């Protein structure tokens, strides 16, 4: 138990959590701006298509147009406050709730996407932790040189656990729905073919690489084994050090592969920000600061 506590409540500098707040917050702000057409797409959806899930289940009918636009605008302001660490104790939980609601609302029209899950969970963790104790408008420089403390460490660990758990769930679901035969590759091959076929028939772009690869059946067993290894082997990353670097490298390559073979872009992991908690991102900020 003591060992677990030493790991979980590890003393980290306030700047570690602050750098994660800035990175994840900046990504969230970029996501809200760049994907505004998708987030606001429900404005043009017919009300009968509304299928609320998660937190949005509190609604029995879609939000009025003005309410969605207002919530979106508010989320942009709260995201800016989150990144800059302004009135963090209030604005951060409010931002986490607004992002959770907006992302869930986007997923409440029949199709559940899986691209923002980890981002939303990371924002929730950061909003519940003292992530603005350094490099923020709330504490301009007061705590940036404060001694390392476990209260700045647990959220970093929690972000790593959230990341790892998400991949483990994806792996376990494959085993529960298909069994170990998923590793033979035929299920993966069929999904890649079906995904490309669906995109063609629905008038969208598809991955030519994935469509071409389908004809080579033996390619898919190694790809399926590697997928399961990355997902089920995720807890090894919690050991840290070389093991964490190895897993993060493998999972990043996995996402590059998914992008190339299925034309599905998981922007958050692909930027590397989803895995920043496994490293010491504050050092990069400090280097930038020294150069400036």
């Amino acid at each position: 138990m003591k060992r677990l506590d030493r790991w979980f409540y590890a003393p980290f500098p306030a700047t570690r959590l602050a750098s994660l707040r800035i990175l994840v917050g900046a990504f969230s702000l970029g996501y809200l701006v760049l994907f505004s057409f998708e987030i606001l797409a429900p404005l043009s959806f017919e009300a009968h298509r509304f299928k609320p899930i998660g937190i949005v289940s509190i609604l029995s009918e879609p939000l009025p147009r003005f309410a969605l636009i207002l919530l979106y605008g508010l989320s942009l302001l709260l995201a800016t406050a989150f990144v800059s660490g302004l009135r963090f104790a209030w604005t951060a939980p409010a931002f986490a709730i607004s992002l959770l609601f907006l992302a869930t609302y986007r997923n409440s029209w029949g199709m559940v996407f899986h691209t923002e899950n980890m981002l939303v969970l990371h924002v929730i963790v950061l909003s519940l932790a003292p992530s603005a104790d350094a490099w923020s408008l709330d504490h301009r420089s007061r705590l940036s040189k404060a001694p390392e403390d476990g209260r700045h460490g647990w959220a970093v660990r929690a972000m790593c656990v959230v990341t790892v758990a998400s991949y483990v769930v994806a792996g376990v679901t494959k085993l529960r729905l298909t069994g170990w035969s998923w590793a033979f590759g035929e299920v993966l091959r069929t999904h890649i073919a079906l995904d490309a076929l669906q995109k063609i028939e629905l008038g969208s772009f598809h991955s030519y690489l994935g469509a071409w690869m389908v004809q080579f059946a033996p390619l898919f067993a190694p790809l399926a084994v590697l997928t399961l290894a990355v997902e089920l082997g995720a807890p090894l990353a919690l050991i840290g050090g070389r093991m964490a670097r190895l897993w993060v490298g493998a999972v990043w390559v996995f996402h590059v592969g998914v992008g190339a073979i299925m034309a599905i872009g998981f922007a958050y992991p692909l930027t590397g920000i989803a895995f920043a908690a496994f490293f010491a991102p504050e050092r990069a900020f400090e280097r930038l600061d020294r150069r400036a």
Partner: protein
Amino acid sequence: MRRARAYLICCGLIYWILEPAWRPTAPDSFPASSYPMFAYRPEDPWVFTVVGADSSGKEHRLSPSLITGSHEVMQAATTVQLAIFAGESAQSRLCRDVAERIAASELETLRQAKVIGQRFDPIRYFVDEQPFSTVRFDYAACDVPGPE
């Protein structure tokens, strides 16, 4: 107290994230998900879509934005699938929605929208290099409204 709160938050999050793994066949949710999208074996692959037909009856594929009003292809696929599974009135309603979007678009040559389902062998589709469909079912058809 701070430490206990930290443990409480982390344990709550772990339970929230891991819980869907125990019920992978339950409806998917967000942000806690079982990530079922590529986990199951697709036994009976149907592709559901809406196509447009011109005055000669020739069919044209429609973009996801015409089908659902969103650029997301999977959103379009799921919307059509849900409408088909919901029955005739949902199929007709989807057909009318799409026909109205066609009318508002620049696709002036399209006269009809059709909600269809095609059963494919997805591997043969690519390996044989021809759109190999074994079965097709037309669920609904409706006219594109003319200019007012």
